[in-house]
């Protein structure tokens, strides 16, 4: 690398014309070449001693590099390495820029910045070497290093094993964090990217004021989840068909609570003209059942207040707040129970899904556009992109994201398994009879009680952005211990039928987190742990639990 970087600087100086024919005979050029020769501890190439010009120097360095490459490339075949290290590490990397600024007045005072991209492609040993250069850097040289988050394998150096410290030897800029500081700015940044791309493709991007105008809305733009729920039901069920959630409740009561007056309970929860409120009434019956209360009595008590809600009256109590928080998930359950795909539509959803990475947004839009074309539509050319194209496109993008992000090695496979377990569990929780957390796609933990392997997989998922670390954790309500908070990347939401918004946070026990993240936990044990968790959320709610106070704090 020493020779490689040295060559780059020499080539740059030649490109700047500092060694051109008119200057070749000046002292500057010859002094520079002589100075570079002097940086070597010994001359490993005979032509080094005869160099006068920059061109000759460049050729000589190229030859040294080539000889080194050939020797190294043949080691595996010959099992011998014949290489002589003729320069102390750092002498060329720092020395050539220093010489250049001292020798050529035209670039005096300039800083040389080495830009090293795709740092993740270097091995740990190679990164140690670069870290050492960063630690020992000398003016006028600096470094800008680009890497995927998972690619920073070590901060160790070759300087007695010292580690570089953020804020001291280097500053770290995580692009997602920079974007996350302002949702509004990130949204508008994404819009500008999209408009620019569409403009380059010849689309008139300035006529629609909002990019959302290119995308059709669910059910032709019907506003309100309640109305959309009504339309879904009318399209999927005949007038005489029983609604699936009613059937389910009936069957469960028959099986687990046959002593109840099931017919009367069902009558109290029916809201034929508002399926979403009906779902809400069913949820309240489940909560009542789980609490060990009398579901028929409570259903009667709730009914008139739900009726008022359904009629649009202002009902200023806990019930209205509860409905407001749960209606999104209840709608998702309704759609699922009618065997319709979950709805992911429009720029706002897509920007949220991108997880603060514009690249994800572009891939998502690309997939949506491709599906639109496949369906015979004319996206961005006067025809709206259909719901189907959007739904199928986001699912493709979600699949792509999981396989693209999982990383190399066995830990990559283990991380994918953990993410699938976690996503599947969030889905089961969302579609349970009695979900507790609203639109849950996050969890918090103080990381205590987790096995080393579980922590390794969790951290790997975070470094590969499959799971996002929420910058501000929260303090546990009772102990005030700071909890680390993690969110399943919203790009994965469609894969598991989750909401793209971050709302409720699950409190998994250490045992549950180990089951999720430790790859040594086999499928049988994971399923057992999952079943235990879900037993609280699905009839017959095997362990009656007092309903916790709703907590929607972020």
């Amino acid at each position: 690398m020493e020779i490689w970087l040295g060559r780059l600087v020499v080539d740059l100086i030649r490109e700047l014309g500092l060694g051109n024919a008119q200057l070749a005979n000046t002292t500057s050029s010859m002094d520079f070449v002589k100075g570079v020769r002097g940086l070597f501890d010994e001359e490993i190439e005979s032509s080094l001693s005869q160099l006068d010009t920059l061109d000759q120097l460049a050729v000589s360095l190229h030859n040294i590099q080539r000889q080194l490459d050939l020797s190294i490339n043949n080691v595996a075949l010959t099992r011998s390495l014949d290489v002589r290290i003729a320069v102390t590490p750092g002498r060329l990397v720092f020395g050539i820029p220093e010489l250049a600024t001292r020798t050529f007045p035209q670039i005096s005072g300039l800083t040389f910045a080495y830009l090293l991209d795709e740092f993740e492609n270097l091995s740990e040993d190679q990164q140690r070497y670069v870290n050492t250069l960063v630690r020992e850097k000398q003016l006028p040289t600096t470094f800008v290093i680009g890497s995927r988050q998972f690619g920073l394998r070590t901060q160790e150096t070759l300087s007695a094993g010292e580690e570089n410290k953020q804020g001291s030897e280097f500053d770290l800029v995580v692009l997602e964090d920079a974007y996350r500081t302002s949702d509004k700015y990130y949204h508008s940044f994404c819009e500008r990217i999209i408009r620019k791309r569409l403009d380059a493709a010849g689309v008139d991007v300035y006529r629609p004021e909002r990019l959302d105008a290119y995308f059709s809305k669910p059910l032709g733009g019907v506003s309100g989840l309640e109305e959309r729920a009504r339309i879904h039901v009318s399209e999927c069920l005949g007038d005489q068909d029983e609604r699936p959630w009613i059937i389910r409740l009936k069957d469960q009561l028959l099986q687990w609570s046959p002593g109840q007056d099931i017919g009367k309970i069902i009558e109290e929860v029916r809201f034929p003209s508002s399926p979403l409120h009906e779902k809400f009434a069913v949820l309240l019956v489940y909560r009542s059942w789980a609490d060990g209360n009398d579901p028929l009595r409570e259903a009667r008590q709730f009914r008139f207040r739900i009726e008022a809600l359904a009629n649009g009256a202002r009902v200023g109590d806990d019930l209205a707040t509860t409905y407001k928080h749960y209606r999104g998930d209840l709608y998702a359950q309704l759609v699922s129970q009618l065997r319709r795909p979950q709805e992911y539509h429009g720029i706002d959803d897509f920007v949220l899904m991108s997880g603060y990475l514009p690249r994800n947004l572009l891939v998502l839009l690309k997939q949506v556009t491709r599906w639109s074309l496949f369906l015979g539509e004319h996206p961005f050319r006067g025809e709206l992109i259909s719901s189907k194209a959007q739904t199928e496109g986001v699912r493709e993008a979600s699949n792509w994201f999981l396989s693209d992000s999982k990383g190399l090695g066995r830990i990559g496979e283990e991380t994918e398994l953990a993410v699938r377990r976690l996503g599947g569990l969030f889905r089961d929780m969302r579609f349970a009879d009695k979900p507790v957390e609203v639109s849950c796609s996050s969890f918090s933990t103080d990381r205590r009680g987790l096995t080393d392997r579980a922590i390794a997989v969790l951290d790997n998922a975070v470094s590969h952005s499959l799971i996002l670390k929420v910058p501000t954790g929260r303090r546990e309500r009772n102990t005030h211990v700071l909890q680390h908070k993690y969110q399943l990347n919203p790009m994965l939401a469609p894969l598991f039928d989750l909401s793209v918004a971050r709302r409720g946070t699950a409190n998994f026990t250490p045992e549950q987190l180990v089951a999720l993240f430790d790859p040594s936990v086999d499928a049988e044990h994971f399923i057992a742990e999952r079943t235990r968790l879900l037993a609280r959320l699905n009839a017959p709610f095997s362990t009656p639990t007092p309903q916790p106070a709703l907590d929607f704090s972020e």
Partner: protein
Amino acid sequence: MTMDYSLLRIDQYQATELEALPEWDIFISAYNESQRVITVFDSVRAQRKEWVIHPEYDFEDGELPKTGVVRVLHTRDEAEFWHDYFSEADFHNLPRDSRICVDVTGFMRPHLMLLPRMLRLLGFAQLDIVYSDPREYQSGEKTQFSKGAVTEVRQIRGFEGTHLPSGDEDLLVIGAGYDDDLIRRVSEDKRAARKLMMFGLPSLQPHMYEENRLRAARAEEAVGPLPARSLLFAPANNPFATAQELHDKIQQLRSTGFTNLYFSPLGTKAQALGFALYYLCECVGSSASVVFPFAEYYTRETSIGLARVWCYRVELDWLNV
């Protein structure tokens, strides 16, 4: 430079004609559970017949073949693999005009690619290579070849070039196989490079071309757009035609220029051999490398049946090593 790989000899044998295969002094095959590998080994006549066991197939002792000499290699490094094998099989003392034949069907691609170079360095002048076509793959386009994680993407030993600082003009030529994850990995490793993709056409069986395209399409996001001029085609079971196609295309691209050249043969073993021949004849010492996504394990049986056997005569003195 003009190269004509069609001058190299190919012979074809139907599944019912295996007794017509030539006789060799030493026949080497990499054991797996495919019928085509076992049938060819059993049918071939040679003074020495040797099984090589790759650690990637993860065989237990009780699962090893009972016929022939069995050499279990424990290293995954392709250069050390051959060093160890040559040492165990006493290759250094073999007469240099020995008739050597290798069935590459079960070999890992990096290992089969390196073998001609290693034999040339030992002083051998000729090598016969056998490859057998399956009737079909076990699960069609859903057939899983590599198993487990891809552990690294790196240059294959003996196929490392002397590169220039890369820019936008790097080229990556991918030999597309069914393993879309491998295509994805290598494409991601050379993110900035312009991609060309070679498909086996004619394919080993007529339906396999479509299966191949379907699988390769899954890696589309990593590969990027592939206009028609970025597609190459060569018969999936003809390494010489593969080498010729590479030669012709690269010659054509030299006029527009590129900085560094990378190859990654992820298709059939015959295709991989073609890439190896092209590289060893024309690219050694240049700014070209073969990069490969190394997976932990490979499925032991992916194919059904044996359609035909090909025998390629590789003239090792053609190699520029």
